[in-house]
């Protein structure tokens, strides 16, 4: 694929699939014909030149391929006529047509993220059909064999067809829960790129970029949903620190990062979104996480961080989402506001809920180190290292552990 077609592919694949799915009600057909249209673009564009409206060109070519295929398959004839009839009715109302054009991808993402599908299938379908990743690319993103991923996607599409999972934006009553499922898929793609748990890379810019693209798409499609804005802000502000997060393959904690290397444009965009969320006054989980990140990225130096503001945001988050992970992050803010002993008391108050989570032990290790309790700190570092899988994070924990061990030995 030429670089230009590749670019168009990422930008337009979802739109072409969505347009065809909306017209023919068949995801398999939509995916296949979108793929064939791109193959034809690779063949023709270098010779004939790139058309002025590549997305429109691709949609027309894909639609004609779909119509050809339906004409050839006599068993599908009835469905074809039915679909075409629906389409004609559709086009008779120009007002309805405009909304349907803007809404096709939104419908598609709600279908891909339907709660009747397994969570891993939701992610796979979203990346494949909306993100335009190839099956090998999706397989690679989640480190499963290509065959397994192909089966997962096929099975999910089959379920959508057989169970008649609707192709539409959920009604108001269902929307909050269904939107949460969509946002969870996008954020999962982001976190897998931000701090991959497997695969040996410290970060994966391809996945964070894809998540940001999906986040921007949702933001365009649902401009009035504060949690959509919150998620995009959270991803922008987190990703703004990408170039400062690892030095020589070792994770650099927030307080020690070179803030000159933060992406100012991403921060400005993220801050504007957070301010918009504040004006709306309908806080939610992603908006609060974004606000925490806004406080961090607002501080010129680590010591300028307004930790009481961070703590207040985690208090709100804990009230709305009382999960152990939120409580753990809140404990970090408590340690900054009231000292490491207070933070440690909060962490130890969590009990065994997060005993298998490396961040719990890494947080305890750091607090014990700061409290001058090296033996316990070393033990906590060991437990964190036994669970942590990201190479950059492991390198950081090993470095800290070595420093504590050396200090403890020289003190004796």
């Amino acid at each position, binding site marked *: 694929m030429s670089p230009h077609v590749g670019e168009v592919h990422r930008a337009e694949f979802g739109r072409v699939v969505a347009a065809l799915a909306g017209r023919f009600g068949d995801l398999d057909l939509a995916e296949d014909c979108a793929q064939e249209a791109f193959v034809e673009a690779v063949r023709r564009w270098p010779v004939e030149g790139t058309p002025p409206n590549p997305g429109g060109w691709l949609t027309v070519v894909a639609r004609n391929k779909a119509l050809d295929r339906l004409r050839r398959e006599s068993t599908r004839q009835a469905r074809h006529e039915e679909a075409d009839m629906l389409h004609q009715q559709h086009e008779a109302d120009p007002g309805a047509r405009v909304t349907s054009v803007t809404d096709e991808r939104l419908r598609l993402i709600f279908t891909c993220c339907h709660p*009747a599908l397994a969570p891993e299938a939701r992610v796979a379908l979203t990346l494949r059909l909306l993100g335009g990743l190839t099956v090998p690319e999706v397989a690679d993103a989640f480190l499963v064999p290509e065959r397994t991923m192909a089966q997962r996607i096929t099975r999910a599409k089959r379920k959508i067809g*057989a*169970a*008649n999972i609707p192709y539409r934006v959920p009604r108001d009553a269902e929307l909050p829960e269904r939107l949460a499922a969509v946002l969870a898929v996008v954020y999962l793609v982001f976190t897998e790129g931000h701090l991959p748990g497997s695969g040996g890379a410290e970060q994966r810019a391809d996945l964070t970029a894809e998540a940001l693209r999906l986040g921007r798409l949702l933001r365009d499609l649902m401009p009035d949903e504060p949690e959509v804005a919150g998620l995009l802000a959270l991803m922008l502000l987190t990703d703004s620190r990408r170039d400062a997060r690892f030095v020589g393959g070792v994770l650099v904690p927030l307080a020690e990062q070179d803030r000159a290397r933060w992406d100012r444009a991403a921060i400005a965009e993220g801050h504007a979104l957070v301010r918009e969320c504040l004006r709306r006054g309908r806080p939610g989980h992603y908006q609060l996480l974004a606000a925490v990140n806004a406080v961090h990225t607002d501080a010129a130096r680590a010591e300028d961080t307004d930790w009481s503001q961070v703590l207040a945001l985690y208090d709100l988050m804990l009230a709305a989402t009382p999960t152990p992970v939120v409580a753990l992050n809140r404990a970090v803010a408590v340690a900054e506001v009231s000292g490491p002993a207070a933070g440690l008391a909060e962490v130890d108050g969590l009990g065994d809920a997060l005993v298998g989570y490396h961040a719990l032990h890494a947080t305890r290790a750091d607090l014990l180190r700061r409290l001058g309790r090296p033996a316990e700190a070393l033990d906590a570092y060991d437990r964190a290292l036994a669970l942590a899988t990201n190479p950059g994070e492991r390198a950081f924990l090993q470095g800290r552990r070595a420093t504590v061990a050396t200090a403890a030995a020289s003190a004796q």
Partner: protein
Amino acid sequence: MTQYLMSVWHTEGEDVYASEEEMQQAFADTDAFNQQLQQEGSWVFAGGLHPPSTATVVDGQGDQVVTTDGPFSEAKEQIGGFWVVEAPDLDAALALAARGSKACRGRVEVRPFADE
């Protein structure tokens, strides 16, 4: 329109109803739900089953018919009853299942019938 099997599953050894009154209320609620299904045009068929211990399994594939005491599956989860409904799409069927689940006091599995 798609037809869906909505089956009710119970875990063996777990009491489905807290009391006799609760059971009577569940029967009444399920009857009312069945009537609503008929009025709304979603109803195809429904039925409650005797306990799994009353089941018999027949294998007629070979030369001799083999009859054994059931149930077919030794799993702890057993089917207790079912509805067959007709709905425009899965979301509509899931909404019916939620109402059925509340009425009969059980978890409901929704599964589409194959076309034709």
